[in-house]
């Protein structure tokens, strides 16, 4: 809505006058592949890939991942939608990933537009470009891909017949930084709503007039869970957002979509197996969605409630079928905290004990809970190739961990680490956040102490051990109790990192690693910004700032210059804390959590109070279930053995260091 004078930097853009040709660009793409890194990123050919037939009666989706192929290919959300759409009679889907900088410049030089990896069709041959937004720093890549597709980056400048740009994923819980570039956001679980969007689009394409496009936008906005930003007006007073108001006929608040039963959605059924190396190159089976541990910094846990477990028999079937179809020898049981899955030990034993696997299949649990019990399960499954174990205590002191509601007692941590070293691991990684609300220097320095104690435990079992304490700067996220919190400056984060390094100096076996504080600042801009941050994102992109997730490409200077040019400041957008009365840019988007609940939990955090996990204890009415008529789907009514964290725990004693640590050397 706010007109932005865009700097006049010319990027050669593929011509947009030509009608969308349904002709493969393969020979032109192929000619570029001799001189780029990792050319297999651009050729497709995955097992499980579809070759959809384009034509009348099918809405064509280009599912876009705004990062490299090897990061984007494994994304399960994108793969689920890919199958659901291609299984429909009235839809088809292909995929596209952000070309790396060498390929992008070759494409621009030769006038090759963004293409799909299946048919190598130009992006303009599709009715929709659908972006998966998993991280904020990819926003400039979204603009770059829209531009490479041959579309104006701003929605308002597009022609009626241009493809519609939609987006989903965790980042859309604050869609405002991309509100000027994306026609419609889909909030929450995509499984059901993607079909509803398809039907609305099918009823409107081909779109031939501006009026027809506007009607389409209104129809999209009527779908629950769909946010069409052009139908909302942001108002500012004294340089600050005061309201985001809906035009007549559209909902004032867009509520997220939630599937009630994960068991009804056993997807992906044919996980894509790439011909080239990607991250998480293994079978992935989602065992549950949602998490109610209640860590206050965790946006994923807050926006995906309630917990919905997949039935164990379905998990086993998906694992068996998936392993024999793909030839993978590793399966990851994915979720936000897989050790919390009801009956996880039995499930794991069933998978690794299956005689058909001859002991070759390994199971990975991407997120371990911190306790000895969990380590025991891990020991059982990682019989082959033990690399390292990772735990995430997040805070250095018990007080700090109560503030963030990550209720890991020191006893839990030390017994977990003891179990890990005693069972043969020599490398333990610990994740911590710094810059947390109420944090004091003693909380920060305690990270080094915890790490040193863990290394000391390790030395009881092995001469050489490595304990890596990995430190990241906290970025307050929308739709969490910490959404009002202040964020540390890069300078303050650097000071705290120096404190930890100083305290850790000379400790044998302890290594301190840290995330670039400047990247946390840029993430802060994109996380809590309002619509005006869209101008910042556009300027960073125009200045060449793509792939900002990649340290070799990241440049905070670009973001600072862009903020200044938009009349904004780091203090205004990132560092200051927010009041209860302030209009939050994402206030018209709801993850189901009552604002009162979030505010109450924020106050509770500041008072150092902890809350229990509601899947095993009485409901405290956060809103995620009650608001949608949902319930947790959890097979076991009891918290897992050993999983004390936050349930039935004496919270007064969590900081007590046990006098005697568990099992001595055997």
């Amino acid at each position, binding site marked *: 809505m706010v007109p932005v004078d865009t700097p006049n930097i010319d990027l050669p853009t593929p011509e947009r006058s030509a009608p969308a040709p349904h002709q493969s660009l393969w020979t032109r793409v192929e000619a570029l592949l001799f001189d780029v890194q990792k*050319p297999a990123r651009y050729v497709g*050919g995955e*097992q499980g890939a579809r070759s959809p037939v384009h034509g009348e009666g099918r809405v064509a989706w280009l599912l876009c991942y705004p990062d490299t192929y090897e990061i984007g290919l494994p994304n399960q959300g994108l793969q689920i939608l890919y199958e659901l759409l291609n299984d429909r009679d009235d839809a088809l889907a292909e995929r596209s990933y952000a070309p790396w900088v060498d390929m992008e410049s070759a494409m621009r030089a030769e006038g090759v537009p963004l293409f799909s990896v299946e048919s190598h069709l130009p992006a303009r041959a599709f009715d929709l470009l659908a972006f998966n937004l998993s991280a904020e720093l990819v926003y400039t890549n979204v603009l770059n891909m829209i531009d490479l597709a041959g579309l104006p980056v701003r929605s308002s400048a597009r022609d009626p017949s241009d493809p519609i740009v939609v987006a989903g994923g965790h980042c859309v819980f604050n869609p405002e930084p991309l509100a000027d570039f994306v026609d419609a956001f889909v909030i929450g679980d995509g499984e059901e709503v993607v079909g509803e969007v398809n039907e609305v689009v099918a009823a409107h394409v081909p779109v031939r007039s501006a009026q027809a496009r506007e009607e389409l936008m209104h129809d999209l906005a009527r779908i629950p869970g769909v946010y069409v930003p052009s139908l909302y007006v942001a108002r500012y007073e004294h340089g600050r957002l005061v309201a985001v108001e809906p035009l007549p006929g559209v909902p004032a608040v867009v509520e997220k979509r939630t599937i009630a039963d994960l068991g009804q959605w056993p997807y992906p059924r044919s996980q894509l*197996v790439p*011909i080239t190396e990607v991250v998480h190159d293994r079978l992935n089976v989602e065992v549950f969605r949602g998490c109610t541990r209640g860590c206050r910094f965790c946006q994923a846990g807050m926006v995906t409630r309630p917990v919905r477990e997949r039935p164990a028999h379905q998990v086993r079937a998906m694992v068996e079928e998936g392993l*024999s*179809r793909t030839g993978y020898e590793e399966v990851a049981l994915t979720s936000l905290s897989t050790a919390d899955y009801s009956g996880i030990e039995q499930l794991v034993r069933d998978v690794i004990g299956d005689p058909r696997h001859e002991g070759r299949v390994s199971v990975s649990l991407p997120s371990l809970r911190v306790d000895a019990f969990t380590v025991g399960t891990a020991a059982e499954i990682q019989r*082959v190739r033990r690399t390292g174990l990772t735990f995430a205590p997040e805070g250095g002191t018990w007080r700090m961990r109560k503030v963030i509601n990550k209720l890991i007692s020191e006893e839990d941590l030390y017994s977990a680490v003891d179990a890990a070293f005693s069972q043969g691991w020599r490398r333990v990684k610990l994740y911590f956040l710094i810059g947390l609300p109420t944090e004091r220097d003693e909380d920060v320095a305690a990270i080094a102490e915890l790490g040193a104690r863990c290394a000391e435990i390790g030395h009881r079992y092995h001469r050489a051990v490595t304990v890596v304490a990995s430190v990241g700067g906290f970025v307050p996220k929308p739709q969490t109790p910490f959404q009002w919190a202040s964020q540390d400056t890069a300078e303050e984060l650097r000071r705290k990192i120096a404190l930890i390094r100083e305290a850790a100096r000379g400790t044998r076996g302890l290594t301190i690693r840290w995330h670039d504080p400047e990247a946390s600042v840029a993430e802060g801009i994109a996380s809590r910004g309002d619509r005006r941050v869209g101008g910042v994102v556009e300027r960073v992109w125009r200045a060449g700032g793509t792939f900002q997730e990649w340290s070799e490409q990241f440049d905070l200077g670009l973001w600072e210059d862009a903020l200044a040019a938009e009349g904004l400041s780091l203090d205004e957008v990132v560092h200051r804390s927010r009041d209860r009365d302030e209009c939050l840019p994402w206030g018209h988007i709801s993850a189901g959590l009552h604002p009162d609940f979030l505010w109450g939990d924020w106050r509770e955090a500041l008072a150092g109070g902890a809350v229990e996990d509601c899947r095993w204890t009485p409901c405290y009415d956060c809103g995620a279930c009650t608001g949608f008529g949902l319930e947790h789907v959890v097979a076991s009514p009891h918290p897992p053995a050993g999983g004390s964290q936050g349930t039935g725990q004496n919270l007064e004693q969590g900081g007590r260091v046990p006098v005697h640590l568990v099992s001595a050397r055997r």
Partner: protein
Amino acid sequence: MTGSGVRLRVRYSKTGKVRFTSHRDVVRMWERALRRSGLRVAWSEGYSPRPLLSFGYALPTGAESLAEYLDVTLAPQLFVASGSHWAAEQLWDDVAEPPAEPPAEPPAEPLAARLSALLPDGVDVHGIARLPVGSGSLQQEVSSCSWKLEVHGLASEELTSRVERLLAAPTALVERERKGRITSDDLRPAVLALTVVRRAEGGAVEPTTHPEHAWLQAELATRPRGVRPRELVEVLGPGTKLSRACRLQQWIERDGTRIEPLAICGHGAGTAATRAERRAS
């Protein structure tokens, strides 16, 4: 380790889009395909066990090949997993006779066809044979490779005269950086044969339509050090660029005769020699 179990030698091609995968990618696709095939592959011992697969000289990323090889060591106790539809006898029937030439049609043998179906498009198995006990590895034995290379940037007369000059020269030095030092390597001894071929003779590789493109056919030795197609084009001097490469054959040298690596799997040296003669002619 490799000497203990039954070993199969597999010949396969890598053409089309899949040629943009790396050698490491090819290793992974074979590991997955073999797991799905029901063939029981032997595994290495130790801290980080791997299936016992042995590949020949790595094909550069982007190059095609009609003649890639892989040696697979089968688990000694039982080489076909239970539940598989092949009986042991059938496996031996499949692998007894190596094919004379890569067939133009998709391979007909059940095992080769089944493996091809489990591999990505563009990776096709053309022959499988049992290796005689004590055979050396592909890396040890392959002594040269034949290539067809598409180059562009030079008129064909100029290209022909540069090829002649290279063949007449006693040395062909290229400079390269190795461990931070510039060293000079002589590629000339490794260039066993090099000719400019007319477009119509493009053969298995699609003919180019570009007027300034030409095909070279080359035989390059693997020892003392291998010459990559890119390096060969480099020593032809400035102005020319490699745009496509296809490995046509790999050769093992025995008593002065070139033998195709599957042919050494024949029953007895005589057979291999006969085949080799037929092939070399």
